[in-house]
């Protein structure tokens, strides 16, 4: 790949393998971010991806890249695939990457690069970066003085909007809360306050289950269909409630933001026992509006649409989600 360095300023280009000072036999240049006016002091003590090697700045034109020499052996294609396929290692690398970017962003407008952007040496890195300088400048203008806030909405595991459900915890063994409207005999009324026992059934909390079991035994097909219907109704109610909440939150935060993006929802396996995530969004907001963001989230939590859902705010983040808008050319 031969790249001509255009408009990269008067700086002389180093030779493609200008990493002779590294003690490692061969090293590669790992690029974390591109920034403008960053103070290199902030990287002191940060391990980055290669503990023992300093995280430093590589200037190109009016900009600088945050880079580090890393051992080429552990950052080859195969090695990387293997390491990043391991969850613990992936986490370590991701957090290290993020920590460097966060440190840079604390002192200057910063464009994060994705994990594992690597060059065979400083010269190659500078050539590639210089070729994209105008794109970086455009993106820097877009995010300067702005931060990203993350907002996630988790639907409640239980649905509280259904009529007459004083306590909505489903009885174990009856998934989806079989008790739909007009549920046939044999099942304790779900609206019974406290829900301890149906009338005339001294069996305590076990009664509904026993009732359901009897019912199923008598008409298994019917019970099955009822259960399916219950599950579906439950799901629809939950979806409706979740979507309403997500819209309310998006409106509230969108009003403060100069840009917003939907991110993929996390699987419930990753949400730590909370309900399903119905909104995962990022908002680009002017720095210094922190209080307004917090207030908007607080206010939206009080809204009726958001009853029973959990609204989580994270940030401020480096504007990861807004630096690479749409396609690659953010014309300056």
């Amino acid at each position: 790949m031969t790249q001509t360095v255009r408009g990269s300023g008067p700086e002389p280009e180093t030779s493609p393998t200008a990493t002779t000072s590294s003690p490692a036999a061969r090293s590669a240049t790992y690029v974390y971010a591109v920034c403008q006016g960053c103070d290199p002091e902030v990287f002191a003590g940060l391990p980055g991806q290669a503990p023992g090697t300093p995280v430093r700045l590589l200037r190109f034109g009016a900009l600088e890249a945050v880079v580090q020499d890393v051992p080429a052996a552990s950052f080859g294609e195969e090695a990387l695939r293997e390491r990043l396929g391991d969850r613990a290692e992936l986490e370590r690398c991701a957090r290290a990457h993020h920590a460097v970017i966060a440190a840079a962003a604390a002192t200057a407008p910063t464009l994060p690069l994705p994990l594992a952007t690597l060059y065979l040496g400083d010269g190659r890195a500078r050539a590639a970066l210089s070729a994209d300088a105008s794109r970086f400048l455009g993106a820097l203008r877009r995010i300067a003085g702005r931060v990203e806030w993350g907002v996630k909405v988790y639907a409640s595991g239980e649905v509280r909007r259904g009529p007459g459900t004083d306590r909505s915890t489903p009885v174990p063994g009856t998934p989806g809360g079989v008790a739909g409207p007009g549920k046939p005999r044999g099942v304790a009324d779900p609206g019974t306050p406290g829900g301890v026992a149906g009338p005339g059934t001294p069996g305590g909390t076990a009664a509904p289950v026993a009732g359901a079991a009897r019912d199923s035994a008598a008409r298994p097909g019917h019970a099955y269909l009822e259960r399916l219907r219950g599950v579906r109704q439950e799901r629809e109610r939950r979806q409706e409630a979740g979507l309403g909440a997500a819209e309310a939150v998006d409106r509230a935060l969108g009003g403060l933001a100069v840009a917003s993006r939907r991110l993929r929802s996390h699987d419930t396996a990753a949400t730590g026992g909370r309900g399903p995530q119905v909104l995962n969004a990022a908002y680009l907001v002017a720095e210094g509006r922190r209080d307004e963001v917090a207030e908007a989230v607080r206010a939206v939590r009080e809204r009726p649409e958001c009853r029973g859902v959990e609204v989580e705010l994270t940030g401020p983040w480096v504007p990861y989600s807004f630096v690479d808008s749409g396609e690659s050319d953010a014309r300056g």
Partner: protein
Amino acid sequence: MTEHTAERPLSHAPSTPSGPANLADILERVLDKGIVIAGDIKIDLLDIELLTIRLRLFVSSVETAKKAGINWWETDPALSTRAHRDAVEDENKRLRQRVAELEAGGPHEEEGPAEAGGESGRGRRRDAGWDESRSHSWHHVKEGQRR
């Protein structure tokens, strides 16, 4: 407040206020976001993503999403170049699962015929209602760019 910002453009503390950031939040940003430039060493983060993100962290199946009552977990192709690459694979996966469901006469059998007829690879849009908001979000981005 704006002057405040202008005075101290360097002040934003970029992790979460309440302790260390959640791994999923970090991963989705460092793997999927950021400004992409071609490196010398080709590492397909898509592989990593498929392995770790799709399988372990993110909604990975129609069934899970249905349980959650959501269906726009899909990456919006307008928002990520990687999404384009994922799109076909995802579509295939969804269709396979949908076919399996229909064959098994699953919970959605009542909706089955109508859907199968009108589906033509777009089953996920059925109860979406989210496309509107998505384009809404996208306008935000555009506006943001113009400023």
